[in-house]
């Protein structure tokens, strides 16, 4: 990997980004410019720049340890929880630099997250979904009931759990739990939902259900999904970014990434030659 090809790739990538965003009538929701991230001395992200469109699904693919999850977690500042993380560069969501403001709470209500493993709290299904709104100060029972129902419907799990809302959420199957996790995120009425390999712990049928759900959800939410599964990226996403060693190698329409990528490394990865 020499610098000239890197440079060229970067300019190519940039031109592609700007072209595609000017072609379509979609709005840019998240705009990342020259983002660098360090874990102590170790640099994990290099000059990441990407424009993520509103109400689209953007997939982040790449081999393990390439920085895609790290990048995802910069978008709702979950990396703040880790000691020794340093960041420079700029991330704007709705034109607002999220690292200039100190209101992480506001950011995280706007940018929801679904994790790799279902992480429902040891409470009832109802309490899990109502947790976020309650913490925002919503106490009215009718209002909470409405939010819980809407959220569970939005996550396509209402019919499966409506008769057992007061029972433990941990008694559900893994796939159901993950959809309740999505409902819990939806309950905050976010604009953006980040998903960190949301189906890697699920069986194929549950995975399919979550994928169908993602396809429905993009009418309302901007979704950024990290996935190890390239078929999944191809199935659910509009755009795909290929990460390698902390850099975005290529970012384009998903169909193009999988049919005729412009970078050799992308091609090697999507055709399964490494990773």
């Amino acid at each position, binding site marked *: 990997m020499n610098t000239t090809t890197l440079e060229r790739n970067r300019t190519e990538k940039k031109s592609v980004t700007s072209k595609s965003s000017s072609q379509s009538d979609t709005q840019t929701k998240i705009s990342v410019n020259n983002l660098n991230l360090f874990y102590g001395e170790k640099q994990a992200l290099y000059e990441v720049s990407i424009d993520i469109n509103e109400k689209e699904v953007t997939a982040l693919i790449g081999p393990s340890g390439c920085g895609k999850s790290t990048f995802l977690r910069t978008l709702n500042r979950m990396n703040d929880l880790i000691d020794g993380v340093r960041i420079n560069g700029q991330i704007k969501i709705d034109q607002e630099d999220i690292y200039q403001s100190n209101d992480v709470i506001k950011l995280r209500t706007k940018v929801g997250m679904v994790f790799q493993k279902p992480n429902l709290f*040891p409470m009832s299904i109802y309490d899990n979904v109502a947790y976020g709104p309650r913490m925002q100060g919503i106490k009215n029972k009718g209002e909470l009931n409405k939010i819980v129902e809407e959220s569970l419907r939005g996550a396509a799990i209402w019919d499966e759990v409506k008769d057992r809302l007061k029972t433990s959420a*941990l008694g559900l199957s893994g796939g159901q739990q993950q959809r309740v996790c999505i409902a819990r995120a939806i309950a905050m009425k976010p604009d953006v939902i980040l998903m960190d390999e949301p189906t890697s712990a699920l069986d194929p049928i549950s995975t399919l259900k979550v994928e169908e759900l993602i396809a429905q959800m993009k009418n309302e939410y901007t979704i950024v999904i990290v996935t190890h599964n390239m078929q999944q990226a191809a199935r659910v996403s509009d755009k795909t970014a290929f990460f390698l060693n902390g850099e975005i190698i290529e970012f384009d329409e998903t169909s193009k990434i999988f049919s005729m990528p412009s970078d050799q490394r992308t091609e090697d990865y999507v055709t399964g030659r490494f990773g």
Partner: protein
Amino acid sequence: MRKIKDQFYLFLLWFAAFLTVAFLVTIVGYIFYKGMGLISFHFIFGDYSPTGGGGIWPMIVTTLYTIVISLVIATPIGIMAAVYLQEYAKQGKLVRIIRFATESLTGIPSIIYGLFGAVFFVTSLKLGMSIISASLTLTIITLPVVIRTTEESLKTVPHAYREGSLALGTTKLQTLYKVILPSAMPGILSGIILSMGRIIGESAAIFLTAGTVAAMPASIFSSARTLTVHSYLVTQEAGDIELAAAIGIVLIVIILVLNLSATYISKKFDKANY
């Protein structure tokens, strides 16, 4: 040959387990055998009589006083200290030193705490030989236990819960109160049960701080005698093994009741959670 060896080791394991149970059964059996004859309604609820034949109600009351007072003080302080150490403090040298100190404190013989209590609470703070002096001393004895067990149970709360909660736009304090502490509750409660056992079993430190007055305490500022101290004194002064054994029965029953109720409460907590 291998099979014989295998059976031999299995026998050793079985024997160790058997020995442990045998000791327990023998001791409890002996105490019940010796003391059961004295147990009566009058013995438990009657007032003490210096001439003999009286009850042990004042000692039971004193024991319950010391348990309640020291737990009421030690539990909140201990839990808050553990939460600070585990959730808030920067994990550096200072925290390591504090941890080492609390761990060392659990190993110090209780007579040392008793001497400290006698000098500090009884004399310097002028609380005198009293239930309150003894309870404060017991608070210091139990604090490290509460801190250690709370810290351990906070450690077992999955990191995913914290992330899940914070990612929903909650504050650290909300996450702590609504998710982390409830999940850690069974562990914290078992720490409190452990401390209760320690308080009930304590005698040396109480002997030095509460004194030995064998009468119903007028208030928590009176000198009084707990069950263990009483048991020690009747054996020592009167050589009355039967009486000591009867007190032992009462102690065993109190511990059993407290443990069972704590387990029950912790189960309730679990049900409320799950």
